[in-house]
């Protein structure tokens, strides 16, 4: 009896931590920075932080959906590299066609992953590994291994422009976060994807269109990754397929998991994901501003990941 009571108690504490831990951490880190970091409470600093976080958030939103279905997408960084290669290739035809082609490629790549996972039945980690290995190579082949400077003002505005004082990329990321939250919370598609992640077999038996939903989820993830590639290319003012999105899969997965979406699926936390991205960004910024070296930053990040997943673990092993 007492044993069960204790377990329940611990589970409740863990669940609370999983649900609100990331918010507590973000608030604590902001307070710490306000108190101890010079020039933290400035508009310029906030802009910099948000601009840096925007592409990661765009990728992490798609990743959150995929992880919600008990999957994972390792190819997002490679898809960003494809964007970085495609945009300069087609910018001659205008900003809109170039961006459209990059996004279409991302959508196709994602749908391809989805077909492998849902129809062929390959484990997500392997299915997306193939594109991770091949995708960046393809991007480099397309770009001839070159970094290409871009001068199209219409396109560069995506990276440096502002609307009402808010950077365009930040605005796009924020709108997408709201859209994704609505998708997960308010639509049949969202309910289905969560159900599939919770219990795929039961979802099949219940007659849900499992294959279609899974392909859709991976397609969205690919599309968002391509968009992130477009945004960072515009910000950089150059297409750099060798460097665009490098290790992005790790940052995105980390942010999603830290934000309370368990790797075991069946649950998607969009606001948590936003917080996860902000937390990782704040951690990095704090360490840099206090002149802690990169090495320490990486080791602390590793500890945060393990801590966050340790908390998430108890719920899944319920």
């Amino acid at each position, binding site marked *: 009896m007492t044993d069960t009571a204790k377990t329940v108690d611990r589970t409740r504490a863990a669940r609370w931590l999983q649900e609100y831990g990331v918010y507590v951490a973000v608030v604590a880190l902001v307070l710490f920075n306000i108190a101890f970091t010079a020039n933290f409470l400035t508009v310029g600093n906030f802009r910099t932080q948000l601009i840096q976080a925007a592409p990661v958030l765009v990728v992490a939103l798609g990743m959150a959906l995929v992880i919600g279905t008990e999957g*994972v997408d390792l190819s997002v960084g490679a898809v960003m590299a494809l964007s970085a290669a495609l945009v300069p290739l087609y910018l001659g035809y205008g900003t809109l066609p170039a961006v459209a082609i990059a996004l279409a490629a991302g959508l196709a790549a994602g749908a391809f992953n989805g077909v*492998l996972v849902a129809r*062929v*039945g*390959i*484990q997500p*980690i*392997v*299915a997306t*590994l*193939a*594109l*991770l*290995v*091949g*995708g*960046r*190579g*393809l991007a*480099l*082949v397309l770009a*001839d*291994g070159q970094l290409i400077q871009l001068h199209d003002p219409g396109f560069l505005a995506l990276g440096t422009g502002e609307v009402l004082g808010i950077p365009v990329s930040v605005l796009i990321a924020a709108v997408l976060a709201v859209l994704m939250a609505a998708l997960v919370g308010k639509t049949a598609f969202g309910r289905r994807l969560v159900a599939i992640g919770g219990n795929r077999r039961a979802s099949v038996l219940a007659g849900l269109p499992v294959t279609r939903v899974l392909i859709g989820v991976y397609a969205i993830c690919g599309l968002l990754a391509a968009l992130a590639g477009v945004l960072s290319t515009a910000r950089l003012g150059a297409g750099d397929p060798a460097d665009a999105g490098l290790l992005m899969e*790790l940052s995105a*997965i*980390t942010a999603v*998991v830290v934000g309370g979406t368990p*790797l*075991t699926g069946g649950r998607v936390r969009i606001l948590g994901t936003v917080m996860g991205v902000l937390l990782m960004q704040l951690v990095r910024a704090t360490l840099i501003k206090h002149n802690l*070296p*990169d*090495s*320490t*930053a*990486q*080791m602390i*990040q*590793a*500890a945060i*990941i*393990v801590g966050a*997943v*340790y908390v998430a*673990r108890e719920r899944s*092993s319920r």
Partner: protein
Amino acid sequence: MTAAPTMAAQDSTRRELMTGVLQKQGAAIALVLMVAVAWLLFPRFGSLDNLRDIALQSSFLAIIALGMTFVIITGGIDLSVGSVYALGGVLAAYGSQWGFLVALLLPLAVCGLIGLINGLLVAKTGMAPFIVTLASLLFARGLLLAITSEGATTYKIPEGEAFVELGRGTLFGFGYPVFIAAALCLVGGLLLRRTRFGQSVFATGGSEQSAKLMGLPVARTKVTVYVMSGVLSGLAGALTAAYLQSGVTVIGVGLELDAISVVVIGGTLLTGGMGTILGTVIGVGIRTVIQNVINQIGTLDSNYQSVVSGAFLLVVVVLQRSLARTTARR
């Protein structure tokens, strides 16, 4: 009444056997074909010098993939091997100022310790191996940067240090790393096939629940395979450092994916419970031959290497999957 089902059972057994052979020997057939074609198309491919190069290049990856095979058969995955490999190299070069033994044992100890932490976290807390080893990927890189003062220092192995011989020395024209890798793979194969530990590895990946019920030491098995993976990656790093005569900080990025690919190409299932060391060795051979052939073509962009590897991996897993389906659908 009993005849029909028995016949059907025999029939399905035969089909199972055939798909099993294809699943197991597909990679070997592919390797033989690739070597034959390369030999015909590129006269330089068959030269002794080139074969030596292929063997040497394969040996470092083979040592890492050996550990990865054990981990994957238990149903796990180790994403940290690339970072640990680089860390092992830096530690070996750093340690070489105190002589041969330190140069060899320091990387093995530290990398083994990282493997031990991976294993304990996976086995004792039930956390996903994927995430645990992802964290140690970051951690090992961080540690490497800290040791090399943010990557600004490259430790050289002192001139005349015996440790260099380990990477540069040759026997019958082939480098020592080739023999070390071959010996390790042989021992690994025997360990997997002929020992109680090997049985536990298969059982853990096949069905953890049943393995526990059978009284097998599941947790200990898991910890052991991650330690092996760490130690072997560290060793591969140390050998690379000996070969290059310095600890290079920028190597090993993405190597975990190479290692996983070759293991998968070699027929080991990522779902665990099935796999062979020989398959992994063949997978490594395929990877290196692809690389080598693309280099031979010369006019071909080296970036095609990863495109070809990715496509190849894709074909292999799709084939594997459809074969496994035929087997399951009896």
